[in-house]
């Protein structure tokens, strides 16, 4: 089918769809103060924020992988009471306004929260105002993408392959690792990229739950927020940095992971 062009209507709609993403970016680029770009991006706050952004988004992706993947698997493969409800709950962080999400996290994981208090007593770990808090907030907001994408893919999968693998003596762990996950590979990659991107852009829940401490919890979106107040050029420059970093990572990873097919 490689010789073919897409039919006109669909190609047209796809172009409009693409314009949707490209046009605002061009708008942003048009407003970029290219001359002081170097100066802005050289600032220490910006470097710190970029580093923090990368750490928290990666951390959140890892958390999502370790907690979200099992959750998706259980949701897709096992019948239990309350499954439908749990599936709905997983989407909540998308629906809650980020500030409310952050507040809900504070109610729960803050020092006076139901889980935060005992956690501090046991381990001395205080989540708000620490990078762990930023990772927690980003995970909360971004994990649904992994869970939902992977669950959908698991339901699409012909389970007889898993049965065949089990009959060859593979434990369920091996089946998951060597048969199931590779077979849903593209969807898993999609889910992880969505998760990472969402965590990278996360703002509302983080500023509410983890605060906005430069060098500690101030990720790039938070730095953009602060800069927006006065130095708007710096805000646009930092946004562009965010865009470039994410583009570089997304384009590289996707090509590598999807190239094999």
């Amino acid at each position: 089918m490689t010789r073919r062009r897409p039919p006109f209507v669909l190609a047209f709609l796809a172009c409009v769809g693409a314009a949707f993403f490209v046009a605002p970016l061009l708008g942003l680029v048009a407003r970029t103060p290219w001359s002081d770009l170097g100066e802005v991006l050289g600032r220490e706050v910006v470097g710190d924020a970029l580093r923090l952004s990368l750490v928290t988004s990666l951390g959140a992706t890892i958390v999502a992988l370790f907690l979200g993947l099992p959750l998706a698997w259980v949701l897709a493969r096992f019948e239990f009471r309350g499954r439908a409800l749990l599936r709905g709950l997983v989407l909540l962080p998308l629906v809650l306004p980020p500030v409310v999400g952050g507040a809900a996290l504070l109610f729960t994981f803050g020092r006076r929260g139901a889980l935060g208090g005992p956690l501090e007593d046991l381990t001395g770990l205080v989540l708000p105002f620490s990078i762990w808090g930023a990772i927690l907030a980003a995970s909360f907001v971004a994990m649904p993408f992994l869970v939902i994408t992977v669950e959908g893919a698991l339901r699409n999968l012909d389970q007889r392959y898993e049965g065949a693998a089990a009959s060859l003596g593979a434990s369920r762990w091996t089946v998951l690792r060597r048969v199931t996950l590779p077979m849903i590979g593209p969807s898993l990659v999609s889910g992880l990229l969505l998760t990472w991107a969402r965590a990278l852009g996360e703002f509302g829940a983080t500023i509410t739950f983890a605060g906005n401490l430069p060098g500690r919890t101030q990720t790039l979106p938070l730095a953009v927020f602060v800069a927006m107040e006065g130095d708007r050029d710096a805000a646009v420059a930092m946004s562009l940095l965010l865009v470039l970093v994410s583009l570089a990572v997304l384009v590289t990873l996707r090509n590598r992971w999807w190239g094999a097919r």
Partner: protein
Amino acid sequence: GGDARREVRVSAAASLSDAFLALETQYEAERPEVDIVLNLGGSSALREQILSGAPVGVFASANQANLEQLVTAGLVDGPVVDFATNRLTIAVPAGNPADVRDLADLARDNLLIGLCSPAVPCGDYAATALAIAGVVAAPDTLEPDVRALLTKIRAGELDAGVVYETDIAAAGDDVESVAIPAEINVPVVYSIAAIAEDHRSDAENFIDFVVAGRGRQILRDQGFFLP
């Protein structure tokens, strides 16, 4: 920083960002053993953090209501001090294309008018000012903060909006100010207080610096009025 400097966390309303960034620099230059860590955000988010036990030493708020909630909750340690005032003004895009001259123009139906939401300080103050002037404004949007309002005025999407004078100074060439006469203007008061926490003396020290020390000059430079 991982060094041995004593840390004071200062939560400040987003509209105080520039002023407090400058205050931090100056204070740390004077007292290198202290590390001011700024936590800038919406007043309500800052309030929630403190209510849920976040370790904060100082809270500077754009209005009294948020601080009062903390006082009620018994989290404020020491006096609440008003340290700066501000005034309202009408912001219009550069060149004032809609030819806005006074508050009464905000009632014009054919204009796109923006105000802050009454729930946030700048909207609360603007409502008071409009009431004093006897104007029934026809806003097309009630923005959550001054920054959001200014963004739209700067982009030319709104023809006019009511903001703080200090914001006009920070916004540069894209916006112009149409002054509101003093008799119908409303004094905007910023308060600061220490929050119960370790390093009490450092927190009080920083508040002194803002309220009575060289911080005053910095605030004045940023366009604030001093009580």
